[in-house]
């Protein structure tokens, strides 16, 4: 009888320890995945910001007239000699809707398109889910008069491309990590 109790007791304790190790392992794995996703998310946000920043700073370069042709909240069209070949180029940025990025798990992500002289280039989504452009005058007041625009405020909402399996840091109805990036760009040539 005593041996039976010993066996049952040690099996119970062994089971507990096994479960503990298993749970620890699962937690470590999910935390590692979340950590990688978070890093990728922040890298994506930074990449998007650098792409936009690179072009927007050149708005109006070598252009004598009003440099911005279209200024919408998710679309901008401007003039600049972007490739420095002496000819003013027409550059346009606009965002697609969420039906264009079907290759990712995230149902909300969109693609930011960049066209140069009508030639369209749509890169990877990089988890972008929303972009908002605001146009400010010299006193940082929102304006819709194209000639008065001095600053462009760009806000980016970026989410992870793959869903979080076991994370306490996401909305269970939309389990994707999220980050936000904003920048105010003052193109020197407008």
């Amino acid at each position, binding site marked *: 009888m005593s041996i039976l109790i*010993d066996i049952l*007791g*040690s099996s119970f*304790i062994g089971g*507990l*320890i096994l479960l*503990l190790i298993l749970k*620890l392992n699962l*937690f*470590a794995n999910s*935390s590692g995945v*979340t*950590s990688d996703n*978070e*890093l990728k998310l*922040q890298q994506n*946000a930074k990449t998007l910001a650098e792409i936009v920043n690179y072009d927007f700073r050149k708005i109006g370069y070598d252009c004598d007239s009003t440099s911005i042709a279209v200024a919408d909240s998710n679309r901008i069209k401007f003039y600049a000699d972007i490739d420095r070949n002496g000819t003013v180029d027409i550059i346009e940025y606009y965002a697609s809707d969420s039906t264009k990025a079907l290759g990712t798990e995230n149902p909300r992500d969109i693609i930011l398109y960049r066209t140069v002289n009508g030639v369209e280039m749509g890169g990877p989504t990089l988890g972008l889910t929303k972009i908002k452009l605001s146009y400010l005058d*010299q*006193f*940082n*007041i929102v304006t819709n008069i194209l000639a008065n625009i*001095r*600053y462009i*405020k760009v806000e980016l*909402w970026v989410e992870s491309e793959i869903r979080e399996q076991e994370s306490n*840091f996401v909305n269970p109805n939309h389990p994707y990590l*999220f*980050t*936000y*990036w*904003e*920048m*105010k*760009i*003052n193109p020197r040539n407008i």
Partner: protein
Amino acid sequence: MNNLQSILTMGSIFILSLVSLNFNSSLLQNNTVELENKVYLTAFSLADDMIEEIKQKAFDEKTLVFPTVNRSTLTPAGSLGKEGENYPYFDDVDDYNNYSRDADEPHAEKYHIAVKVYYVSETDPDTESSTQTFHKRVDVTVSSPYLNNNAKLTFIFTQK
């Protein structure tokens, strides 16, 4: 099981629990740092926005129309600040001295942005100057209850 075995078993479970607890807390700490990084990113972008805004302004109230070659005509170091203007109608860099405002962003609220403007030595931009020079240093500090340390960006403006 004799008593010794029981004590040894309980001791090993206790040690395992401690290891597990430490492991969990270090993972949680890792997650906290990641979240804090996101808040830092936004804090730095807010500071950068502020510097970008100031870049559009004149170097000094006295150089709004014409630049000067005489340092003594610039605003004295003790008088750096707004000259009657109110935000957002500031017209020169030092109007932003002691300017501060709060900002709320989508994933973290209660950022506080504070600006300090002062003259610095022309040969050593880390040394504050008590007299006028052609270099003004702008320190933008962003704080948040979610940050352990403030985010601080510095930019030195020279007369255009």
